[in-house]
């Protein structure tokens, strides 16, 4: 799989993961834009979702987010999350 395809797949997986595991109401995965702000005004996620995403990344991708200051940048949008996953995930 090319890097581009891999990134697209990660984005799809992340969107499905957020909708399913954060129990988002009335949102379908494909409706989330890649650059949409996830927290606050955008998708409306909050502090509890943030710590839940930490666990989801750990469980689904084996990734550790060490501190929430780092998390704030990573969790900005699907784009930033997907890049973090692509760069840090262990080679399968």
């Amino acid at each position, binding site marked *: 799989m090319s890097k581009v395809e891999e990134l697209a797949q990660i984005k799809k997986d992340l969107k499905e993961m957020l909708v399913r595991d954060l129990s988002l109401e009335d949102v379908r995965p494909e409706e989330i834009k890649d650059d949409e702000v996830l927290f606050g005004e955008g998708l409306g996620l*909050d*502090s*509890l979702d943030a*710590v839940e995403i*930490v*666990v989801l990344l750990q469980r689904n991708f084996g990734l550790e987010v060490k501190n*929430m200051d780092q998390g704030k940048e990573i969790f900005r949008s699907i784009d930033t999350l997907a890049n973090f996953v692509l760069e840090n995930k262990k080679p399968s």
Partner: protein
Amino acid sequence: MNSRPVLITGLGALSAAGATVADTAATFRSGRPGGGPVTLFDSPLAYPAFEVKDLPRTFLREGLRTVSLALAAVDEALQEAALVKELPKFRVGVCLGTTVASQLNDLDFYRSYRSTGSAPLEPVERYLKGNLSDAVARAVNARGPSLTIVNACSSGADAIGVALTWLRNGLCDIAIAGGADELSRIPYCGFASLGIMSAELCAPFDRDRKGLNLGEGAGVVILETAECAAKRGASSDLFLAGYGSCADAYHLTAPHPEGLGLERSLAKAFAQAGIGPGDVGFVNAHGTATLENDAAEGKVLAKVFGPGIAVLSTKGFTGHTLGAAGGLEAVFTALGLREGRVPASAGFRNQDPLIPLAPVQKETPVSARFAVSTSLAFGGNNAALVIGREVKA
């Protein structure tokens, strides 16, 4: 509101800071926190905790650590009130707060059920006998109202507030009130997952605070109507003047950033006590050392009392004892009034520019007639207790 005076005739406290109120006072003077590695259970997580090391054997109840902790503190408080033998003569209510003891969360039981579809029921039977207030009421033969408050981190303070309501409504003459909680792996994992536990000893209100440490213990007050105390020849200069409680109606885990519910709770507690913030000598704050709690709470305390108010968090000595915290801190508040001084707020080094006040950094004398203990709970509930001391002319 009805202003029937309610005296505090006994105090009992058991935590990592000491097995009795006197031990605790000595620890406070020494300034030495009692936190360290967890020994009560195995966990790969390495957050320090504040364990009770010397729970007297007399009070041990197999598999019911929270009840055991509560019984020790209740006994101390009843001793001070000279009520140990006298209790059955009165209408005695029991209102205690907890978090862990209310949950059926025995990991061995559940592991067995998960893997085999069956499990020995002893943990369930113990749980069904372990309703905290009922277990204590049975142990001391109290026959008045009995209620366990499960309001997360404000449970102990709320329980004392409920007991005040009972006494003022004539539902009992004496109430055993406060809170107890044991250190358990379940909330230990849970608080870690919320990202609010510190790998270092906690530093309430400090600029560089990293989160809370869990603790365990029990804090109990004996409350009684002045008529009842007079009738049995008991007296006390300490009294419970007011209780206020308000919900933030904001978020499941985060406090309202401006501490809306806490500010209203303080106003309610003042109204019941018939005092204003200027009458208050010090505040025993909730001060868990999480970023959010201390910021919201510090803002409210500075706004209500002014930035010069003497504030301390005792979590640096006890850790966050969850359901016990409000009970323990009510005892510490009463102790501060009685001793006329409060200890330095353990763990604090540098003021946070985002918090408009700093806690007391050395042992500080207090001479005021009133002090306040605040509690902010998970779930957005807030509680404030006003405790008073009658100054003899």
